[in-house]
């Protein structure tokens, strides 16, 4: 995206939390911002890259992004990085030691927890990192707070010379609200000062930094007692008071507008004296936090009487309709259980599930169609659109945990195979961006330790799942400018995969793909099959002439449905009993030609040649008419 003129100061704009943070990053005079895409954090760097006067980049993974930001902060510049919750796990190696060095210029990490699990593999609570690394956690409750807290985070970071974690959740990142924005204030970098005792963390130097880290934490706790980020909303109904942080604050204000609330914007280190004083003003004090009982456990350890996860769920969002029954019961109020409400008003009507699908003409369709045809294989999967291969109709992905894990899991499945699996073929499936993020090391391990694994490297020239962002494999940088493009075949060969075992295949050519996968899985050594067609949602992709089905020719075999292309629709079903006595289900189809981009996948398994280019049919019909 090209830089645009930012909206003038004092504008009141409808902004998502991600957009609000981005604006504040720019206004704070940040010089360097880096991230690896990940829902729900992706838009932060996308938006930041549109602002002028700063350096923004897509990093290859979150650890690298944090190290880049840290480098800039050592140089005295303000720096920022954004990541999803699991990204901070990747970056944590850097975090756990840069907490000892501290920073010169302000350094803020915005971490987006996927509370409610809309698009992630787990629901971990990133606030643990504040405790683990002894660094402050700030938690905004909406877009306006996200904007304000980001600016304050840079001030706090410089005042206490520490990285600050801004803890977002999906319900902050992707909620739009009105934000009043301000001016950009340039920040002058002090310049890097050589100071080995601070920046070179060898044991002797680190030992001396540890007491400083604990002193800083104590100072921050004192700050938490006085900062206006931690404030009390006095309420008239003292039966129950709430200690809360993040978006749960808005849910409480919605559900219990008259209740006293202690809102913690700087939630770690927690201000225990403020909490103790607040708890004494209410009959019962409930800690409302998403997800884990972190504040609650610490407050209880201080001997302050509070209630928390005894009555509230430890999973998912604490929306008003979740809070009300729990708090109602605590207050001894009669709670209408959803199941007991009149059916008409409350019960959801039963509707089929509508899981996310791969796109029409997606280059992964051919890969999963092929994998679904193979027997006796175990498929180790990874994070990306291709994770959807676990679903119907392919059912061709057997495991998925974390970025790059397909490689190590595959090697482990190979080395750890039991007698029952001795003839099983092990396949790993990974996307281009995930391979560069954390997959390359795993492949090196497979090669080095002589694993018997066939790797499918699905190069669709985009970070597809998060919306088609660029990466070192696309030949473009975050601004869309030309950038060096990685050569995957050269990389895997350099890692030691033998040249004969490396294939680049067009995934729309099913016979070639099938033959290559089948042959490589038979050969007991590492092989890599690279598919080379772009994501249909990025501009590298060019659609072809759409197809249609000749009704009279369709025999209802349903082979085309096995591709999983969402442009194919069933028009009629039937079942016949074959001479062998076996019942076969039939499904006649049509193709939604207005969305078909002519990839030709479905044409290949069509037995009666009933699928033809749409314009051809129109011509035939036209001829018949005249």
């Amino acid at each position: 995206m090209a830089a645009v003129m930012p909206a003038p100061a004092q504008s009141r704009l409808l902004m998502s939390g991600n957009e609000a943070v981005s604006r504040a990053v720019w206004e704070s005079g940040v010089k360097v911002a880096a991230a690896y895409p990940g829902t729900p954090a992706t838009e932060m760097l996308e938006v930041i890259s549109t602002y002028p006067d700063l350096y923004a980049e897509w990093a290859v993974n979150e650890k690298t992004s944090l190290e880049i930001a840290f480098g800039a902060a050592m140089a005295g510049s303000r720096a920022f990085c954004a990541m999803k919750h699991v990204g901070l796990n990747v970056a944590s190696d850097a975090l756990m030691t840069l907490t000892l060095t501290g920073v010169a210029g302000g350094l803020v990490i915005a971490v987006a927890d996927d509370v409610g699990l809309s698009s992630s593999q787990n629901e971990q609570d990133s606030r643990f990192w504040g405790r683990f690394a002894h660094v402050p956690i700030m938690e905004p409750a909406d877009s306006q707070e996200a904007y304000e807290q980001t600016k304050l985070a840079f001030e706090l970071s410089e005042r206490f010379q520490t990285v600050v974690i801004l803890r977002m959740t999906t319900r902050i990142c992707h909620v739009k609200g009105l934000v009043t924005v301000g001016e950009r204030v340039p920040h002058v970098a002090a310049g890097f000062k050589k100071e080995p005792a601070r920046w070179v963390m060898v044991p002797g130097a680190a030992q001396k930094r540890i007491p400083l880290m604990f002193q800083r934490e104590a100072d921050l706790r004192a700050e938490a007692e006085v900062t206006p980020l931690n404030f009390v909303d006095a309420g008239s109904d003292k039966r129950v008071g709430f200690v809360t942080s993040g978006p749960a604050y808005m849910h409480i204000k919605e559900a219990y507008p008259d209740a006293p609330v202690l809102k913690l914007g700087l939630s770690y280190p927690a201000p225990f004296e403020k909490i103790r004083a607040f708890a004494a003003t209410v009959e019962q004090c409930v800690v409302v936090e998403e997800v884990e009982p972190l504040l609650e456990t610490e407050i209880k350890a201080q001997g302050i009487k509070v209630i928390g996860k005894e009555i509230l769920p430890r999973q998912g969002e604490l929306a008003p309709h979740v809070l009300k029954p729990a708090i109602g019961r605590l207050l001894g109020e009669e709670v209408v259980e959803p199941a007991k409400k009149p059916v008409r008003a409350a019960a959801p009507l039963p509707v089929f599930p509508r899981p996310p699908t791969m796109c029409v003409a997606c280059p992964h369709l051919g890969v999963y169609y092929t994998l679904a045809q193979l027997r006796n294989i175990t498929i180790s999967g990874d994070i990306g659109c291709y994770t959807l291969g676990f679903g119907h109709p392919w059912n061709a992905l057997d495991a998925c945990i974390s970025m790059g894990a397909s490689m190590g899991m595959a090697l482990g499945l190979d080395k750890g195979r039991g007698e029952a699996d001795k003839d099983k073929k092990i396949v790993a499936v990974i996307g281009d961006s995930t391979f560069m993020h954390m997959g390359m090391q795993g492949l090196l391990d497979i090669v080095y330790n002589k694993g018997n694994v066939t790797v499918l490297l699905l190069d669709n020239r985009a970070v597809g799942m998060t919306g088609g962002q660029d990466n070192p494999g696309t030949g473009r940088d975050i601004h869309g400018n030309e950038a060096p493009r990685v050569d995957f075949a050269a990389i895997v060969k350099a890692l030691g995969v033998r040249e004969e075992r490396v294939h680049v295949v067009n995934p729309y050519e099913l016979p070639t793909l099938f033959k290559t996968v089948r042959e490589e899985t038979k050969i007991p050594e590492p092989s890599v099959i690279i598919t080379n067609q772009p994501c249909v949602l990025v501009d590298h992709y060019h659609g072809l002439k759409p197809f249609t089905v000749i009704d009279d020719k369709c025999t209802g075999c349903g082979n085309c449905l096995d591709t999983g292309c969402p442009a194919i629709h069933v028009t009629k079903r039937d079942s016949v009993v074959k001479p062998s006595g076996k019942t076969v289900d039939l499904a006649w189809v049509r193709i939604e030609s207005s969305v078909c981009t002519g990839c030709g996948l479905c044409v290949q398994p069509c037995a009666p040649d009933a699928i033809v280019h749409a314009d051809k049919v129109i011509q035939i019909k036209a001829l018949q008419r005249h």
Partner: protein
Amino acid sequence: MSNEITNILVVGVGGQGVMTATEILAEAAIALGHDVKKTEVAGMAQRGGVVSSHLRFGPKVLSPQIAPGTADVLLAFEAAEGMRWRHMMRPDALALINTGNLTPPVVELGLFEYPADPIGEMRASGARVYSFDASAIANELGNIRLGNTIMLGAIADHLTFSPEILEECVLKRFARKGEKVIEMNRQAFAAGRAAAAEAAKTQGAAEAVPA
């Protein structure tokens, strides 16, 4: 809509323009001086999954989420999706529903069935529903992508503010796309209004069942 806060739930399938439509509704509410919050789960929306977008506006909006049973208007871009979110409606709420169907692969594969009469089932559950075929109208106007402008036209006469403000916000979106595109959207907006008005006239009797 006696509450201070108006809750509008816009639902459909990824790729239909649900989020854009909600954003335009939000812009209209802002133009009238309301506080606004808009939320949805967008992570996997473009993969043909379920999309539900919450819009709340009024003097001061706190929680961005519409609680079940509190939506004032349900605007459904797809029939079964209207049915899926029916429980979000207030007892006296109105559902404006596109009768057009989008069947997902799990239905095409025969693993699940598409409901035979989603609108009928909603009415049987006591919901007030105005339904019309926005997909067909869009195709008649020459572009299925006009669907979300048609849906915005349909809701225009069922808001707390005048339809002209919403129309202005819709057309502003296309200001840079040229007069032809603006005109197509103007027609689509009018067609949506007409479709909802016609549905109100012919289907009004069906709304008699109180919840």
